[in-house]
């Protein structure tokens, strides 16, 4: 954490204790008799596990931009100029190799190749090929490590989303954000360690439901659940004082109760009591810190302009991206933005344009903003979906319109920031973006690499559940990919 900010937090904390004597939780608990307890004995709200990080981290925090529904790698990142001449020809059997299809196209009579209708051009010093749909992200390619050969296991959204978030298709495992919160804790005392946004998405988007299991702690204790900030109404449920309770009432309650603290309690030495007091303190502070977090008046006009006109509209992607930066600044460990609507089985060109219009500016601005503040050095950003999309068209195909089915065999994700090599493209697919031909990167290999950036040996971050030492990266020996690391 920024030392200046740390100082600020400590000051705020001191002022708070000086003014009311103790937190609300401690005070309410003080209505019961007990032995005195020294405030200094209270633990940090989000302590790290002993021994973690395993080694010096390159990235201290993670921002994960998940495009739910599976963005088309063919129309965004995986440039295949040679594909144009195959327009409307059947995908050669030698390429398809009788692989599993989803039920949505398994009954289709033929599999005609649908080249992208979008123009690609080279960007940055690295000359990375990027689709015209991503002009803002394209400006940042020299900070981006593009991986073209990510693969996953599942072909339908639900298991694939569960897999991409937890490393397992079977519900009940811990999400990547929960693992990091569990292992590394967080530096903030005022905000959750792991925060999730689920911004709104274009009406043309084919939106799959999101499940809390995607940011759930699974078998880990529930204090490691992601806290989903809401785009409408209150950002945190129950964060407002109830109707009829004014802040004066609260003040009266706190002041009256503060007198009780000479006989503060700690009845039976139950360590959970300390935790509970700490959580009441945090809940109390969230009543202030959350409104402060979402109050963007302290941002400069220049910053707001970078994120675009939606920056100040709660519930938008741009607003979530800006809040992600503010959260990381305030010591939150992991922020995830789950943006929906990327499931283009039909009418892909129009719908995908709307999806990228909704997000590209925010993504580019987030990277630029982090970079300008020197935060990109120790913040890792991930962008991706739960699988890719097929080269062949689902439904009617024309030069201007087509759809694409699910394709788990290869898709594009990118990393940027703390610990990864910017301006590179890793791995290669065949001419149809249908099979991997060079340097595969299984999703769990990618996660092993991400954990490495965060100072964690993925083999050693474990939790015993149902007789097994569970890991984010599973039991089949995921590998860190050194070529991605700076």
């Amino acid at each position, binding site marked *: 954490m920024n030392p200046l900010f740390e100082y600020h937090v400590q000051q705020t904390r001191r002022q708070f204790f000086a003014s009311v004597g103790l937190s609300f939780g401690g005070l309410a608990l003080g209505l*019961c008799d007990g032995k005195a307890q020294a405030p200094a004995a209270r633990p940090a709200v989000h302590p790290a596990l002993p021994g973690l990080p395993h080694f010096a981290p390159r990235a201290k925090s993670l921002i994960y931009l998940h495009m739910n529904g599976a963005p088309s790698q063919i129309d965004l990142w995986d440039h295949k100029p040679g594909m144009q001449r195959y327009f409307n020809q059947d995908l050669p059997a030698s390429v398809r190799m009788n692989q599993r299809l989803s039920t949505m196209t398994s009954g289709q009579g033929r599999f005609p190749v649908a080249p992208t209708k979008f123009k690609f051009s080279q960007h940055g010093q690295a000359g990375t090929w990027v689709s015209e749909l991503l002009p803002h992200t394209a400006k940042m390619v020299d900070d981006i490590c593009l991986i073209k050969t990510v693969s996953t296991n599942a072909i339908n959204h639900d298991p694939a989303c569960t897999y991409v978030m937890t490393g397992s298709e079977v519900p009940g495992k811990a999400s990547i954000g929960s693992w990091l919160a569990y292992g590394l804790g967080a530096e903030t005392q005022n905000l959750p360690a792991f925060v999730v946004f689920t911004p709104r998405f274009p009406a043309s988007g084919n939106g799959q439901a999101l499940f809390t299991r995607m940011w759930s702690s699974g078998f880990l204790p529930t204090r490691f659940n992601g806290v989903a900030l809401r785009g409408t109404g209150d950002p945190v449920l129950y964060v407002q004082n109830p109707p009829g309770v004014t802040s004066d009432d609260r003040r009266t*309650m706190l002041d009256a109760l503060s007198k009780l603290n000479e006989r503060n309690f700690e009845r039976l030495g139950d360590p959970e009591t300390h935790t509970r007091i700490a959580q009441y303190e*945090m809940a109390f502070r969230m*009543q202030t810190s959350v409104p402060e977090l979402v109050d963007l008046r302290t941002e400069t006009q220049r910053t707001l302009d970078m994120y675009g006109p939606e920056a100040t509209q709660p519930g938008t992607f741009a607003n979530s991206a800006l809040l992600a930066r503010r959260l990381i600044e305030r010591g939150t460990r992991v922020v995830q933005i789950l943006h929906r609507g990327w499931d283009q089985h039909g009418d892909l060109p129009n719908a995908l344009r709307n999806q990228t219009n909704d997000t590209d500016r925010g993504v580019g601005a987030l990277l630029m903003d982090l970079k300008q503040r020197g935060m990109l050095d120790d913040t890792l950003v991930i962008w991706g979906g739960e699988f890719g999309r097929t080269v062949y068209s689902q439904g009617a195909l024309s030069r201007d319109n087509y759809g694409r089915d699910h394709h*788990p065999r290869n898709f594009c994700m990118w990393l940027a920031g703390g610990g990864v090599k910017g301006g590179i493209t890793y791995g290669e697919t065949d001419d149809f973006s249908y099979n991997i031909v060079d340097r595969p990167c*299984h999703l769990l290999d990618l996660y092993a690499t991400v954990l490495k950036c965060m100072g964690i040996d993925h083999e050693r971050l474990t939790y015993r559940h149902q007789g097994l030492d569970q890991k984010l990266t599973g039991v089949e020996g995921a590998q860190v990919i050194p070529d991605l690391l700076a």
Partner: protein
Amino acid sequence: MRLCPLLVPALLLFSTALFAGESAWTGAKANHWAWKPPVRPALPKVQDAAWTRNPIDAFILARLEAAGVKPAPPATREQLIRRVKFDLIGLPPTPAEVDAFVNDHNPDAWEKVVDRMLVSPHYGERWGRHWLDLARFAESNGYEFDEPRPNAWRFRDYVIAAFNADKPYDRFIAEQLAGDELYPYDPQALIATGFNLLGPDMTDAANQAQRRQNTLEDMTDTTGLAFLGLTVGCARCHNHKFEPITARDYFRLQAFFTPAEFRRDHPVPDAKEKAEYDKRMTAYLAATADVRAKLNAMEAPYRKQIYDKKFAALTEIVQRAHRTPEAERSAVQKEIVANTARKLVVSAQDVAAALTKDDKARHAVLQQELKKFDARKPALPTAMALQETGKTPKTFLLRRGELRNPVEEVQPGWLSILSPDMRGEPASIKTIAPTSSGRRAALAKWIASPQHPLTARVMVNRIWQHHFGRGIVASPSDFGLRGDRPTHPELLDWLACEFSSTWSIKRMHRLMLLSATYQQSTIDGVKKDPNNALFGRSNRQRLEGEIIRDSLLAISGRLNPKMGGPGVFPPIPPEAGVSAKQWKASADGADHVRRSVYIFARRNLRFPFLEPFDVPDSNQSCPKRERSTTAPQALALLNSSDVIAAARVLADRLDKDAPDTDARITLAYRLTLGRTPTDTERRLSREFVAQSPWSELCRALFNVNEFIYLD
């Protein structure tokens, strides 16, 4: 799928070794304590025999004395009545209940309290919930669409009734695993088999054969966890890494389930409902015979025509698969047929769209005619259940657990480690009827046997865990080598032998609750046993979310005690942003204040007030709830409408029921914490209400630790 194509040949070489290990087990894996049937141990000798009240205490005290630790002093009577009421009923004691017990100086006062609670119908709501956690109970399919299961509540009611009736545990097991085979005429036993189908179900799965396989795996895994306390699911893709369970063992266990059809709408009428249905159905059929015949005659040519057209639209390969007689279809053809069958279904809409103009008019008239009788058409109550139809599909050992990689056929059989000579022989199975293979009946008989080394131990340990805060085996669904060792192996065996002699769960409650061990306070005077491994004091327990909500309702006098029936939908605050499709509040306000066990259990949407309090994810069997402590909990208890309403109503109640400030403070403490305030607390509260509304005092009391913890 996990590995990239380049690695596949290596995997195939490697995997031939995966299924070895069929010979007799040896070494530590063979000699693990839990594989040997429990033998009733002699009671240990203790020095302070006066402390003991029943044999449990002898086992506990002997270990304490050996470690030089004195048991904690007994809990106060106020603590005891609160503890046992929450423990058995899940609600706070009323002041009258507290007074009655505190003032009852008869030696059997405690026994009477325990017995009274064990016969309360609300006992089943409390202990049934523990079983529902194990059964991964939910009332929707989960996954992407999370469709409701409108009849799933019947299983919940079955469980509550079973606990209330003290249904012997061996019978409880038999009904859930094989109720259709063993008690085919008992509708409750059919409902019980729904246990196997309670897991998530991907209705839109790309591959319907895989969907069925997923359900088979889920019921195999859950049977292992819930009844046997074994993580057999780990052996699905490879021999278990830590336990003596092979992949072949896993599929042998699964083979008990393969003849079952998974019914989502199995009729479960009792005799009276069935007779009534038959009578009304006969009348309905007679009354509509004419109009139905006319409709059929008109639709038949259209149906044929539409079917032929749909068939012609299929590709040649698919057509050939459908034309091939079922018995001769290849595995691929079977998959094709399963995945494309729905394309050949001729729906009522198809027929309606195809009708000529004239026929359309006539058809509409006839349908109108038929519709007039709808009110007279009876329906049977249905439930999710297993049913056999006489077909016995083969069960295959699947390489890496993948359906398309069958290795060899297997027959139903016990886990090799628990078989004679530790060899995996096929089980001996007697067919019960042409449509009842007897497989699950045999499985139930094997599991529910007093000689089974795991069944009784696992269940008494679960009961112990809920009463004492931690199991004698701390990993309640894992009794294998990787599970925790029992802290008191002799006690566990003694309890298991006691239990399997009658299989009465209520008898076990009585034994445990009447022990001196249970009646200890939580005071840790000696500080020699920080984790309380010796049970030399009571463990402080945090109440579950459901119990916190039920308490808020009960204390403010709003709890609707109605039992059973379809799930209810209390309102969810608009700030939660839940769509009306997911949750529509029940129209009847009385349904908003039912006990939490009756809240509709949506797999993908945990009730927002309960969620921060560790309500388990119903995708998996949950043997032990988390006890997290989080800021969202604090916010829920400070600011949620449930708490605000309870505080207001309680303040009104204090005003009405107590004459002055002192009496009101006393009543507030008694209702919320089950005890009278100390002098200091009384003085502080007086100062507090001088400045703040009474509802704020109530709200503060809902937020003190003591409210959600049991001492």
